[in-house]
């Protein structure tokens, strides 16, 4: 029996999309993450745009300055939309034996981390994250290439996840 036949036997609903959620679905991250990321990306863009517009206007090219303003506004709108989508694309699922983290729209990724392989779990809160009441949970295995990061969790949820993952990791730990 080929892997494909097995696939269809196990998950009949599964279409061509390998990133489809299982029955329980992905748990989304908090929408405040989008606000926080928009704040950073859009303020940087705004500053760059304003500098360009002022420089062009002062330099005697007000028409180009106007074009720069329009381009800047379009970029701002695009960023607003893109960050929203990106944040909505992040999700995770705590399953019996492993944790799954999904992210990305254009370049999509799905990371499966068996609980027994977790070496440590980090909870990080930067100044902006604290302001927005968010935290980032990062799982480390013995592999440096494991990139299982869940941003945008409310601190309680982050703490709960950390404790749960640490306990599960302890239970199923198998050294390296």
């Amino acid at each position, binding site marked *: 029996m080929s892997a494909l036949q*097995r696939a269809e036997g196990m998950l009949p609903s599964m279409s061509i999309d390998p990133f489809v959620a299982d029955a329980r679905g992905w748990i989304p991250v908090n929408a405040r993450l989008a606000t926080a990321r928009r704040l950073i990306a859009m303020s940087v863009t705004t500053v760059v745009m304003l500098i360009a517009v002022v420089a062009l206007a002062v330099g005697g090219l007000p028409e180009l300055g106007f074009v720069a303003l329009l381009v800047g506004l379009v970029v701002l709108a695009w960023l607003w939309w893109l960050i929203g989508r990106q944040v909505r694309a992040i999700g995770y699922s705590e399953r019996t034996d492993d944790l799954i983290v999904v992210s990305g729209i254009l*370049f999509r990724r799905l990371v*499966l981390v068996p609980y027994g392989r977790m070496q440590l779990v980090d909870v990080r809160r930067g100044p902006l994250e604290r302001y927005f009441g968010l935290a980032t949970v990062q799982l480390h295995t013995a592999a440096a*290439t494991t990139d299982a990061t869940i941003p945008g969790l409310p601190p309680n949820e982050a703490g709960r996840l950390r404790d749960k993952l640490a306990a599960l990791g302890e239970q199923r730990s*198998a050294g390296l």
Partner: protein
Amino acid sequence: MTEPRHTHPVTPLVTMVRAVPVLIFGVFVTGGGEATNVLGGLGTGGVIVLILVGVGIYAYFSWTRLTFFYDDDGDLRINSGVFVRNERRVQLSRLQSVDVTQPILARLFGLAELRPEVAGASSEGTKLQYLALDDAQQLRAELLARASGLRREEGAAVATAPEQVLVQVPSPHLLASLVLQPTTIFLVLLIPTVVAVAGVSGVWELGLTGILLVFAPVTVVGGQFLRYFGFTVAQSPDGLRLRFGLTSHRSQTVPPGRVQAVRIERPLMWKPWGWVRVVVNVAGTMGGEEGEDRPSVILPVAPLPVARTLLQQVLPGVDPFSVDLTPAPAAARWRAPLQYKQLGVGATPVAFVTRRGWLVPKWDVVPHARTQSVRLTQGPWQRWLGLATVSVDSTPGPVSIAALHQDARTARILAQEQADRAGLARRQAGPGQPESYPVASPTVPPPGIDSDLP
């Protein structure tokens, strides 16, 4: 706690001699002019001697302040540092490997450098520089014996564990394999290309560059030849022993069960001879800046059957060639036109196997019990073609495992199955037994395991 010991008393002298070329170079680069003026016409030679004396004094105090001993828990302690004291404890239960290296200068004095490798630590602070070669080998045997749980009786010598030579790479093979590498051939082909371009364009300076380019392949091949010269692999109860190097002789030990993943490479030009190279990831040895000094190549070149025998030693029961690999779907041709015929993925009862590479086809193997995490990725172009990549994360090292451009419909199942197999393999191995993983019966019993260990 045992009596603190010092490194070999000649060490400060070697450190001094080692500084000479650097100093001479430095003086020539700076012209030595200012220093000479400041010091009132000592002359360039005088400046060098003065600095050397300084280096010597510092080296002497470094030597007197460096001691090593076993503490009451049986772990190795290294105390060092002249101005800043550094007390390091090498937890022997975490010992990954012990290297004895002989840089050319140390070799002239009959000395060697001992490097106990511990997971996650840089080897810089645990280096014992220099010991008499015999002492270094004795100490290595002692450390490995202690690491494998044998407590040394005070005063009783630990014999170096007996070993059985598995492979010895003949120098002509090594040389031929290095010449037939894609890198070398590319560098050689570059010469006529540059010369031809010079001839056509009439830029003669370019032609001169072409002639200088002759040195590039010679340097590459020569460097690797000196490095891997006389490569010997031996099996002993304390692990796999690797010995190699002409100018700088190295001796590395990979304790049993530390190999996390294996890559078997077969550059296209080696195919007629049936040669392969074997590269491994070893737990706890971090890649990066010091990667050169870690065991990674465990066999620079050998016929495939020899490599398979060696593979049985480092990962018993794992045979990547015992399974038919699922090839990538035809659509992969549009994403990876050169290597798509090589792409494949499969799983044996104990390991996950992927194949890829164009000029250098590679088989990457990771036992299920060594799978750290599984990644599924898909870029826009892959999505358009209905493809996805499944990667298995291993500890840092040269081996990376990826089933490139597999059918998107099966990729998720593939990833999930691998995570499940990893979980199953771990449960069978049970907790606290990182060295073992389920093996029905090792195809080749490790030789010498029941021999006369103290």
